């Protein structure tokens, strides 16, 4: 059924469709609407779940870790400083192989205070063992929650569905809300192989000595790789049921049949802007192919190589920064392309930090700069007031 939904409420709808049994909630702008709507759904009885109000994000994550350990599909949401406070527990969730799903609304980290879109908060959780999927629009946000549960429960790893503050969290868009019956078919009840059972009390997550710790880490890496392998089939099944597909790396060519001289890599909501810019620039005779990257962990290295390897130039826009290095997606892409004999010239742009608009003009400027300049030694700032 088609509805006009706020991005946050699309998450709540998806959580409800996923028949989540435990929701833990601690508010933070711009995430709060998600858990507020879930509270309504639980209170009015349309979602049969336990709703736990907790005293911090650390506890919010600890609570769903507890619930999932007991074998129950669980959900929480956070953003920015809230996610940072969860950090310790994020490691635990992945290490305990719990298929939690977390809606993460990208918001800048302080100081200075800033509540607007910036990906540094989620990207800073790179090594926690969580899968991360970045969304372009509200429909993708809703669908990604459902996809994330399916994938997470298949490979026993937690997943974050990540999307930009306000541009998506507070924007109303027409959304096709799937039928419950179809979601039930795609996402059957979770059947955990291991869960806390009072009838058969076991100790979980106890000490693993140096003899075994590495093997547990190895298994997590294996699971990440398995997620990459299994995702296309899961996405295909999703498409057959719902008519929509979300490849981990997607090319939007400027013109059919020929490769543009430049590939522009985007993530998150700026991809939508780039689509419009692409069409406008093409009318002016400037062509670039748009490459939307959806997955950060596991990072689809082979797919990146396959898609980007043959371009002369690749420009990457990062709405994030790793201080002392540069844009984080650009680093990953550079690393993925490294094994190639002949590598595209890489133009790593940083733009739109702290919610600054990445406009069609920004995209045009980036494409123009990448077209003229020689590849830089380090990062390129776009829109900086110097």
């Amino acid at each position, binding site marked *: 059924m088609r509805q006009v939904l706020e991005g946050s409420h699309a998450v709540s709808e998806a959580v409800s469709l996923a028949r989540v049994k435990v929701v833990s909630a601690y508010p933070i702008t711009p995430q709060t609407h998600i858990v507020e709507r879930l509270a309504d759904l639980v209170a009015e009885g349309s979602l049969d779940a336990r709703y736990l109000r907790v005293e911090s994000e650390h506890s919010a994550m600890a609570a769903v870790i507890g619930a999932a350990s007991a074998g129950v599909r669980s959900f929480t949401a956070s953003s920015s400083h809230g996610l940072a406070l969860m950090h310790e527990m994020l490691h635990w969730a992945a290490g305990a*192989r719990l298929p939690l799903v977390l809606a993460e609304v990208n918001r800048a980290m302080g100081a200075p205070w800033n509540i607007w879109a910036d990906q540094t908060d989620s990207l800073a959780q790179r090594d926690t063992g969580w899968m991360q999927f970045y969304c372009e629009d509200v429909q993708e946000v809703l669908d990604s929650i459902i996809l994330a549960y399916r994938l997470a429960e298949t490979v026993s790893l937690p997943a974050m569905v990540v999307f930009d503050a306000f541009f998506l969290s507070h924007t109303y868009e027409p959304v096709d809300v799937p039928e419950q019956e179809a979601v039930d078919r795609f996402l059957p009840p979770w059947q955990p192989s291991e869960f806390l059972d009072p009838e058969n009390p076991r100790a*979980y997550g*106890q000490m*693993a000595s140096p003899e075994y710790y590495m*093997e547990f880490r190895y298994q997590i890496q294996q699971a990440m790789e398995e997620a990459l392998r299994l995702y296309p089939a899961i996405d295909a099944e999703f498409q057959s049921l719902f008519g929509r597909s979300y490849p981990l790396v997607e090319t939007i060519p400027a013109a059919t049949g020929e490769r543009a001289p430049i590939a522009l890599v985007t993530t998150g909501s700026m991809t939508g802007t780039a689509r419009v810019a692409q069409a406008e620039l093409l009318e002016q005779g400037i062509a670039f192919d748009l490459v939307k990257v959806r997955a950060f962990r596991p990072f689809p290295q082979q797919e990146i190589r396959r898609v980007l390897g043959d371009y002369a130039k690749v420009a990457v826009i990062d709405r994030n920064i790793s201080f002392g290095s540069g844009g984080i997606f650009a680093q990953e892409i550079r690393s993925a392309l490294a094994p190639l004999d002949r590598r595209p010239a890489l133009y790593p742009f940083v733009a739109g930090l702290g919610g600054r608009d990445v406009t069609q003009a920004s995209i045009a400027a980036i494409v123009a700069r990448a077209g003229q300049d020689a590849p830089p030694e380090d990062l390129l700032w776009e829109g900086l007031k110097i």
Partner: protein
Amino acid sequence: MSPLTFKSVREMPMLSRSADTMAWNHTGSWRFLRPRYQDKDAPCSAACPTAEDIPLVELLASQGCFAEAWQRIREENPLPAVCGRVCFHPCEGGCNRGEYDDPVAINSLERHLADQARRQQLTAGAAPPPSGKRVAVVGAGPAGLSAAWFLGRLGHRVELYDAHEEPGGLLRYGIPSYRLPAEVLAWEAGLILEGDATFHPGRTLGKNLSWDELSSHDAVFLAVGAWRSNPLGIEGEDLAADGLAFLEAVRDERASAISGKVAVIGGGNTAVDLARTLLRLGAEPTIYYRRRLEDLPALPDEIKEATEEGIPIRPLLAPHRIEQGEDGLRLVLTPMQVAKDASLQARPTIAPTGAPDEEVTVTAVFTAIGFQNSPGLPAGSAQAVSPYLQRLLPAGAAEGPPVFVGGDLVNEERTVVTAIASGKAAAVAIAALFAGEEPAAKLEAGRVGTGGTVSFNRLSGGDRSAREPHVVGFDELNPIYFRYQGRTRRPGLTLKERRTTFDEVHMRISGALAMSEAERCFRCGMCDQCDNCYLFCPDMSVLRPADGESRRIDFDYCKGCGVCVVECPRNAMVLEEEPR
């Protein structure tokens, strides 16, 4: 079962876990602190002079067990229909909920339970077999009725003497019917007298009830009250009428009609009762009080209701003279003020301001400025047994039965509920002497709180004797588990109805309201099986027997972390050092 060592990752589980059950691991051996379920006393119970088991009563009421709740009240106080109407409810002052939002409406609930029992014609349980002892109780007011009830509960036969025709004392002849209808009192007194007690009306101590006659009993309890009005000590005093005698005449339906402006002198409950009664009879009363408004000894609720009914209260006017005028009585009043250097006193001394006297012309002047003990008591020395009871050692009568004095004769408060407490203490003390026990020690064994409150259940070895005699304060609760909820207001007559009829001003709250109001009770110090301990125990060591018995701790696994104790909303658990 998984192997205990792994040669390859392929043999390993996905996450680290024990190979098999951990039930063998009795983590209770790590414990150095141990939780225990321990009920304690609630501040409402400790503040109630009769030690009603209020948390339990409210728990039962919240579950709709009204009859059982009523029986539990009567275990400590045989007059809940009376107290539910006229008690000054110190329980509500002690209620911990008062520090949260508003105290539980304990008094309204008590009345609801008693009225419900009356409607359903419930009766008291059977009394124990007779002991063969006969006790004389003189005065059938709240103290005497209470003594009769508890002596009956202990198997002793009671001869109840009173100067009036009906039992109740001040309840019957002093308190107006708009506060306490006669039929309600008659029902409740009837429940007391239906046992092994005989009521002897029209017997006045020192007149037609002699000391010799009383001496033939095995024990005597004197609770004849304080019915003698204090004199005004002013010129023209003979022209004033005795307020209490007038109230008595109204209750006896022999008062003559009265109209026009009337003056009531005094500031206690009797003065207020009198003014409100005069209003209902068609007069225009004004209360004149020599001290300040904040010094009025009447109960705040009474003053508020009188003011609502439009009765003026004129403070700082002392009666000076009463004269017979042509068109009525002329009352001359002297304006007063707080005396110099007296402003820091709790009840400051007053002195004339020096301003000219004020004169009012009225059809009648009534006095209610305090009362003295009724006459007829034998001479002798008194010895305090408890705050509400004295033992009298009559001069030159060493051979006679033990004599106790109670009710308004001995307690400063002179309230209904302290009189009931006094009667209970007398019954316990008399029974103790019969059993060869020390009365004060016996009373001490039933004490609740730090005052003179004594629980009959506790000293009889009932379920309250298992409670720790510690009164739970608000700071000892975990109020995060309580929700704000407004206090129930009791319905009542309209002001217009109040001014013209003697119908009861307050009405009973409904059963549904009673249940929700009772649910507001924190049940301080009493396990109500809310199961917070069960939910929070990280070791799953709180056991809930299926038969509804109390929760138990599984000490095989309880590590003594104390979470259950901390999360108990009502302080019904305690954490103690593990015995070595």
